[in-house]
C-alpha cells in the first residue's frame, strides 16, 4: 500500500507534500483502527443485562405484605428409619500415587527418608474399592440422632492430615489436633477458620452452617497438606472406607430421598459423581433418588465408577 502510493506522487498537483501527509494520515488511521477495533472493554465477557420491568414487578411482589410465597408441593413424610449401604469400586487403573514435594521442616516431614504421597485417588489394590467418595442426603425431613456433643478428632501427623476426607455435623465440636513436634495451621475454606495449632496442641472448631459440597482443608505453612471436610445439619453423610464401602443408618423411611455423591477427582460438575444407573435416576449433578421401607437395609451392591469419571 505504501509503495503504490509513491507512484502517485507525479500525479498530484501539489507535489511532494501530499504523500507525506497521506502517510501520516494512514498512520493515524491505522492507530485509530487499532484502538477502535478491539472496542471498549472487548475481551471482557459481558453477562446479560437485567430485565428492569421484571425487576420492578418482582420488587413490588417482595415488598407486598403477603410475601406471596409460591406454594411448594407438600412433601410426603414417612415413619420409621432405614439403612442404605453399598460399595464404590474404580474400574480404571489408578496408577502410582505421585510423591508430594516436601520442602519445609524436612527433619520432621521427611524423617528418615519418609515420603508423602498424593491421596486424591485411593483405590484398594485387591478389592478395587474406591475410598473417600462422599455421599450425603439432601434436604432431610426429620433426623433421628441428636448432634453428638463429644468431639470428633481431626489430627495431623508427619505433616499429613490423618483423615483425607471427613464429615461432621453442624454444631458438632471438632478437635483439630496437631500430633507433630512442629507447628501447623489448619485452614478450612469457606468457613473463615484458619487457626495456628502449636506442636502437640489442639483447638476446637464447630461448623456453623452446611457446606454443600466438601471444602478444602489446608495448612499454609506446609502447602502440600490437603484434606476435605463436609459439614451437614442432619449427619446423613458417609465417606467411603478404604474398601469403598459405606453405610448410612437411621435414614427417614417411607419417603423419597435424594443423595448427592462427590469425589475429589471427579470430572463431573464441581466434583459430582454420576453413574449410569437409570433405576436410581442418577443425574448430571451427581444425585440419585431412592425410597426405603421402614427397618429396611438397602444394599446398592457394587457401584462401579468408570475410568473416565476420574480425572487423570
Amino acid at each position, binding site marked *: *500500500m505504501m509503495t503504490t502510493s509513491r507512484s502517485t506522487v507525479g500525479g498530484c498537483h501539489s507535489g511532494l507534500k501530499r504523500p507525506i501527509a497521506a502517510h501520516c494520515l494512514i498512520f493515524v488511521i491505522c492507530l485509530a483502527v487499532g484502538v*477502535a477495533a478491539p472496542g471498549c472493554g472487548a475481551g471482557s465477557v459481558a453477562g446479560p443485562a*437485567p430485565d428492569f420491568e421484571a425487576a420492578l414487578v418482582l420488587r413490588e411482589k417482595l415488598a407486598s405484605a403477603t410475601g406471596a410465597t409460591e406454594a411448594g408441593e407438600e412433601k410426603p413424610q414417612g415413619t420409621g428409619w432405614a439403612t442404605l449401604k453399598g460399595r464404590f469400586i474404580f474400574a480404571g487403573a489408578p496408577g502410582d500415587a505421585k510423591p508430594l514435594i516436601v520442602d519445609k521442616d524436612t527433619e520432621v516431614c521427611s524423617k528418615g527418608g519418609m515420603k508423602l504421597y498424593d491421596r486424591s485417588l485411593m483405590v484398594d489394590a485387591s478389592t478395587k474399592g474406591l475410598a473417600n467418595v462422599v455421599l450425603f442426603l*439432601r434436604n432431610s425431613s426429620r433426623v433421628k440422632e441428636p448432634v453428638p456433643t463429644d468431639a470428633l478428632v481431626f489430627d495431623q501427623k508427619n505433616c499429613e492430615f490423618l483423615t483425607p476426607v471427613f464429615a461432621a455435623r453442624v454444631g458438632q465440636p471438632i478437635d483439630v489436633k496437631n500430633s507433630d513436634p512442629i507447628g501447623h495451621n489448619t485452614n478450612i475454606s469457606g468457613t*473463615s477458620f484458619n487457626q495456628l495449632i502449636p506442636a502437640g496442641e489442639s483447638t476446637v472448631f464447630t461448623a*456453623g452452617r452446611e457446606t454443600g459440597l466438601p471444602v478444602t482443608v489446608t495448612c499454609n505453612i506446609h502447602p502440600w497438606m490437603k484434606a476435605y471436610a463436609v459439614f451437614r445439619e442432619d449427619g446423613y453423610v458417609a465417606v467411603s472406607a478404604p474398601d469403598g464401602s459405606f453405610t448410612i443408618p437411621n435414614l427417614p423411611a417411607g419417603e423419597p430421598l435424594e443423595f448427592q455423591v462427590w469425589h475429589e477427582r471427579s470430572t463431573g460438575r464441581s466434583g459430582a459423581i454420576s453413574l449410569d444407573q437409570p433405576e436410581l435416576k442418577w443425574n448430571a449433578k451427581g444425585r440419585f433418588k431412592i425410597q426405603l421401607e421402614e427397618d429396611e437395609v438397602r444394599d446398592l451392591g457394587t457401584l462401579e465408577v468408570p475410568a473416565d469419571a476420574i480425572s487423570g
Partner: protein
Amino acid sequence: MKMLVRTLDMEYETVSAFAAQAGFKTPSGDLIRRDTRGHLSSGLFPVWVLGGVAVFLLLLTTTGCGKTAAASYRLNMVESAKQRLKPEQEQQVATILAALFGTPDEPIAPSECGLDAAKLHLAAGPVRSDIVGRKNGLYREHCAHCHGVTGDGMGPTAAFLNPYPRDYRPGVFKFKSTERADKPTHADLVMVLRNGLAGSSMPSFALLSDAKIDALSEYVKYLSIRGEVELALMRAFFELDDEDQGRLPEDREFLIEEIVLPVAEAWQAAEDALIDVPEMAADIDMAASIAKGKELFYGNKANCVKCHGVTGLGDGQVNDYDDWNKVVLQAHKTVQGGLEQAGEASTWDMDADEADEHRAELAWLDRFQKVLDGNALPPRTIRPRNLRQGIYRGGMRPLDLYYRIHAGINGAPMPAAKGTVPPEDIWHIVNYIRSLPYDFNGTLGVDKPMVARDRL
C-alpha cells in the same frame, strides 16, 4: 490484518458514499475508486478523504463506544462460568439483583439489610452537586476507578496496582476489630477510609468530612452485601432439584429469608463481635517481653518464622495466594485440566450424545477461558509482611497488631493465634514485632528505622 483491511474498506465505502452524495470529485475528475483488488487505491485517494477517515475514527475512539449509557453493575462472570450458568440463568440473577439492590445510580436494599438510604444516595450515582451545592456521587469520585462501579476490585486502574484493590463481593475484609470469621464493624471500615492502608495503594481519605466517610462506608457495605447475595444466588442453582434449565424461586421465603437474611444478619452481628483485648500489664518489663516475643516468633507455638522468615523480611513463604486470587487460580487450573482431558478425547469413537456432550464441554471451557482472560486479573502471590519496615497495612497501634495476631487476617494465609496462644503471649509477640524495625543484628537502640536491606 485482514480484519483491518475490511474495516478500512468499510470506512472507505462510508466516506466515498458521502463524498459522492456531496458531489465531491477527485482531482482527476473521477469519483473515488478502488484498485483491481478491491482495496484502497491510494493513487486516486486524496488526502482529504484520508483526513476525513482519520477524524471520524479519532472521534470514534476518543468519544468511546458511542453513547453514554447509565452505569450498570457487572455480573460475577467467573462464578457464573464456574457454576456453568446458562444465559437465561445469568439473566435471572441480574434481574433479581436489580429488584433487590437497584442500579449504581439508584441503589436500594431490602430493609432487612439495615442500610441507610440517605447515605447510599450521597455515595451513589454520577458525580454531581445537588440544589444546595452538596457533592453527590462520592463512590464514583473517590473509589470506583480502583474498586470498580460494581465493587469487584476491577476498576480501570486495578491491573496496575499491587496488591490489587479489594473485591468486596465475597464479603471478606482483612483489617477489623472483630473475630476472623466475622464482618468488620462500621467503625472498622471508617478507619480504613480515614487512615488508608499503609504500604498499599489505598490512600487516606482523611480530608473528607465525617459524613462523607460515613456514607462511603455504608456504600461499601451495600456493595459487599449485594456481591454476597449474587454469589449465593449463583451457587443456589446447583442446589436446585431440577437438573438443567432451572430457575430460582422468586418468593420472599427464598430470596429474602434464605438468601439475603444470612448475609444481612452477619453484618449486623459484627457490631457486637468485638475481640476482647486484655490490656497489656502497665508495669511490663519491655526488654523481657521483647525477648519472650522473639522466642515465640521463632518457636513452635506461634511459628511466625515459617512465613515471615528467619530475617523477618517476609520471605519465609512466598508462593501462597490470598483467597481472592486463589479463586481465579483454581479456575485457571479447572480450565487447563479440562482442556487437557478434552484434548485426549476424540469424537471419532463417541456416539452422537457423547459427542454433543463433548462439544458442550469444550464450549464451556472456551467461554470460561475468555471470562478468566477478560473478567479477572492474573492471579498473584501474596507476600507475608516484611516486619523490618514498620509499615503495617491495618494500622500501627499495638492494638492493631494484637488484632492481626489474635484473629489472623481473613482472606489471607495468616492464621489466628486465638485459643492456642494466650493473650499475654500475643502481647509479647506484638512487642517483639514492634522492635524489629529498630533491631540491628539483634541489638536494639538504633534510634530510627532503616531500610531493611541496609541493615542486613
